[in-house]
């Protein structure tokens, strides 16, 4: 990790000295992690690819403001999250993935076991995944990003707050709201055995 940090800083010095190609090493090294978080936030492969490219472009333009004592991986990760947040905030939510509040009652009749993983559940897992994705789309961009970072990226409240540019308590509240909404969305699916 330390070695990677030193290599990153060496590449940044080279870029700032006029060697544009040195930035390629940084792109190659960090593209995969950026794509992962971008996909989890946007939920869309094409959007995630765009976010990765946009993040590296923004990072390149801001590189002279990068502080030498920082970690480039963390820095570019935050830029990517901001890009993803902007993207899901700016786009219209695809209606195909939206589950309206007044959904068709027939939809709510999809029932799964609460704790046991029975055959029915396995058969319906694909549909559950789609509903989960729809529930995720029902969140605000901030809630979705906070939930992804907390639940899937295993980031701390402080890290989420730093990425979102909000106070830690606000970040925590965003996670609370996201979980509450998601559970509410999926509650019709749950039945007791």
């Amino acid at each position, binding site marked *: 990790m330390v070695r990677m940090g030193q290599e990153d800083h060496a590449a940044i*010095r080279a*870029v*700032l*000295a*006029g060697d*544009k*190609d040195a*930035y*390629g090493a940084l*792109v*190659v*090294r*960090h*593209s*995969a992690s950026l*794509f*992962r978080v971008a*996909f*989890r936030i946007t*939920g869309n*492969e094409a959007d*995630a*690819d765009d976010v*990765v*490219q946009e993040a*590296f*472009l923004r990072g*390149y333009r801001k*590189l*002279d403001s990068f*502080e*030498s004592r920082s970690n480039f991986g963390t820095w570019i990760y935050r830029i990517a999250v901001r890009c993803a947040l902007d993207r899901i905030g700016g786009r219209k939510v695809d209606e195909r993935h939206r589950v309206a509040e007044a959904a068709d009652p027939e939809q709510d009749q999809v029932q799964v076991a*609460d*704790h046991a993983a029975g055959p029915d559940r396995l058969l319906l897992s694909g549909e*559950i995944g789609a509903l*989960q994705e729809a529930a995720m789309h029902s969140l605000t961009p901030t809630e979705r990003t906070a939930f992804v970072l*907390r*639940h*899937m*990226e295993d980031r701390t409240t402080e890290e989420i707050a730093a990425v979102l540019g909000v106070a830690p308590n606000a970040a*925590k509240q965003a*996670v*609370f709201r996201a*979980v*509450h909404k*998601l*559970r509410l969305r*999926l509650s019709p699916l*749950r039945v007791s055995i």
Partner: protein
Amino acid sequence: MNHLNEEELIEHYYSTGVDAAQEHLEQCAQCAEAFAALKSDLGEFVAIEPPARNAAYGDQVWHSITSLLPVHEPRKSNWLRLNLWPGLGYAAACALLAAIAFSAGRQWEHRQVQTAVKVTPLPAQHPQQPAAEPVPPRERVVVVVLSDHLDRSERLLVELKHADADSAETVSPLREEARSLLAANRICRQDAKKIDDPDLAEALGHLDHVLAELADRQGSLTAADLARLQNEMSADGLLFQVRVLRSRIPNRRTDKTARSEGGEI
């Protein structure tokens, strides 16, 4: 017993260590059930695995953006600036401290000089001498002490020169004054030797002899004794010497100041 609300359950779900909620869950079946339901719900949301990207993905990203990137102007100064700022900050702080210390020292020194002058004011200065002359405080005190001693000695010698041996009222105070001046005269004489001033040392030596004669005389001072002392004074030209030394003091100080201003600076 207060039950845990949903926020507390969520916080406990994402916490890594053992917290108060854990103890409560072990004792409260209702909250334990609620927590189990939360755990089940959130367990459904497994981390979304992104579509696989091949090993060349990073290169692909790089090739897609490389044409959009301008070449950075060499900014060595930027890195220099990042590294120099802390150093410049320290240097500025040190310079500020030095300036404050210098200013405080000047103020303190100025006040010390004023105090010394108030306590032992100088006699009237030479008319051609500037009013505010920068003299080191220690030297000024020494000069003032010597000046005062010579002043008193001169008065004593004048009175001794005109004293009448028949008048006890005149002679008795002279002996008291001589005893008082004797100790100071010896200190001044030692200092004169230390600073290598033979004229001053010699004059103070003569003065010492007269003062000792006058102070140590047992019994009353006879007319013969007084005449002998007056003759010694006249022979040595002691009163004249003291007056010359007395008048030299301002000049000595002026010479030293001029020497330090012209030679050392």
